[in-house]
């Protein structure tokens, strides 16, 4: 069981976990032969900080009433969440390689009824924040101190329904809600700014009466600091706008739209596994580039 709100976790240990979590993502996708590496890899540092330090939850009792709720709105990044859930002990890691196969508990997109630890079914973009608002309102009505975290894609923010929900969260002063935006500036057809720009994103959220924190999405420490600030902010919902790199941690996938929705073949998989390391700070590739 995790009580959460851990302000002095062993950062080094958390960073080491990210390597194992990325390995899990890659082995799942490789075994499946299809799926979405880019957006799964970009949220690993956040999910690690969340599940292993901030969140109150119990992997042995996924329906624990007092748990905090995590809503993955960008459902295609399911493998990222699956790997974290396996790491935390919701189900055996061996399940990861059944991803996307017939009868698997790990569906191509999250399925509430099939996977322990999954709160909402998602995959059709634009719906998670509304559901998170509903859950936050329900918890408030019940006098619960549980909180709700919602993970959004930056491309996903093009859905109008997200902006309807953004207004609801602020209007209802949902300070038990934290949204996390994976601001990797990539979607399928290209960069978010080219396809249909969302900048200036922080200003937009501010204008919609949110507490806005901009954060380095690949620094565990920065995530933890931001999560603490979110926890302490009253009367407003908080959004963490996380600057991330799509495909983070696998040098040949980083910042490439082509790696949005293709699984690595065996050769690529082996290369990716070999190159895994702690990415907190500049990635291995970035360091190599700097040396060259």
């Amino acid at each position, binding site marked *: 069981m995790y009580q959460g709100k851990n302000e002095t976790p062993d950062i080094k240990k958390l960073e080491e976990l990210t390597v194992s979590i990325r390995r899990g993502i890659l082995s799942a996708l490789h075994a*499946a*032969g*299809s*799926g979405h590496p880019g957006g799964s890899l970009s949220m690993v540092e956040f999910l690690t900080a969340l599940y292993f330090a901030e969140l109150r939850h119990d992997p042995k009792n996924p329906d624990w009433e007092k748990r905090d709720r995590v809503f993955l709105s960008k*459902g295609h990044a399911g493998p990222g969440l699956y790997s974290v859930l396996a790491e935390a002990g919701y189900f055996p890691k061996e399940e990861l390689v059944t991803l*996307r*196969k*017939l*009868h*698997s508990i790990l*569906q*191509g*997109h999250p*399925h509430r009824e099939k996977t322990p630890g999954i709160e909402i*079914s*998602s*995959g*059709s*973009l*634009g719906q998670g924040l509304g559901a998170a608002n509903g859950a936050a309102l329900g918890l408030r009505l019940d006098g619960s101190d549980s909180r709700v975290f919602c993970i959004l894609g930056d*491309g*996903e923010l*093009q*859905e*109008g329904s997200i902006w309807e929900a953004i207004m609801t969260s602020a209007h209802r002063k949902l300070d038990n809600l934290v949204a996390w935006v994976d601001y990797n500036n990539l*979607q*399928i*057809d*290209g960069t978010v700014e080219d*396809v*249909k720009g969302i900048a200036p994103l922080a200003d937009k959220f501010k204008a919609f009466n949110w507490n806005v924190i901009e954060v380095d999405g690949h620094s565990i420490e920065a995530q933890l600091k931001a999560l603490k600030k979110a926890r302490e902010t009253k009367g407003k919902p908080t959004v963490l706008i996380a600057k991330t790199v799509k495909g983070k941690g696998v040098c040949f996938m980083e910042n490439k739209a082509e790696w949005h929705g293709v699984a690595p073949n065996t050769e690529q998989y082996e290369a990716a596994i070999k190159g895994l390391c702690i990415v907190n700070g500049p990635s291995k590739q970035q360091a190599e580039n700097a040396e060259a």
Partner: protein
Amino acid sequence: MSALKTREARDGYGEGLVKLAKAHKDVIAMDCDLGRSTRSFRITEVDKNRFFDMGIAEQDMLSTAAGMAKMGKTVFVNSFGVFVTGRAFDQIRQQVSLPKANVKVCGSSSGLTQGADGATHQSVVDVALMRNLPNMTVVVPADAKQAEEAVIALYDVKGPAYLRLSKHPTPDYIPETPAFKIGKAQVLRTGSDICLCGCGPVMYNVLAAADVLEKAGIKTGVVNFHTIKPLDVETVKSLAGKYKRIVSIEEHSILGGLGSALAEVIAGLEKGATLLRLGVPDTFGESGSGEELLAKYGLDTDGIVKSVKNLK
């Protein structure tokens, strides 16, 4: 069979779109961040300015398309079938179907053979949704060549349409004759005992099943109902008079699709064939390969044969 070159219906769609765009300046394509997958992006080979990536915003895409159609454009809007019909249903209803706007709603990666993405991505009720809207033409091509013919033919239907496309690969197996014509079912085989009526790439399995049944001495007719709406009612009536049993086969829920459309006609006849509907029973899909999922719901060759033999 594996030696035959296979293509996906969406590839034929892309070919057709390019040809149309070359021939007609009013042809526009819009997409919601799936331009390569749906093949709509290919219109840029003809004219970059006639492609609009609307971002992940299906409702906005449909409203924008309706506005463009008012300005005399023929707008092909694209996404996965599940999103373009589901998320934007009310925009299609009020801004496309009601005012008869010249918008062609193209639903890609439809049906079970969407595959491993799972329940949220498998569109198995899209035909039901679109068929129930007045003024809509609904076409489900059976192979890539037919998809190309369909997109070109739909240009001449001045008004709203739904084109259901698939990424399930098959050879181009539908014969040249009888030629594709919107609203006219294609009788591919004539029999006397049982008639298999289907649509979409699953027709490939239907034809293979008919071969097996013939060998077992069951005289099997096969009809391709590529147009679900307007339904070829005359052909349905004549089939219902000629055969004792009709079997509908579709990669769609048995509620509201081709099977239901046939049932609506057959139920009104004084006497005629009984109908068995094969498809997805009232349930969501799940992850798996397209072939596995077709087999699970009895839509592979074996499954169709078994269902027919059970009738006897």
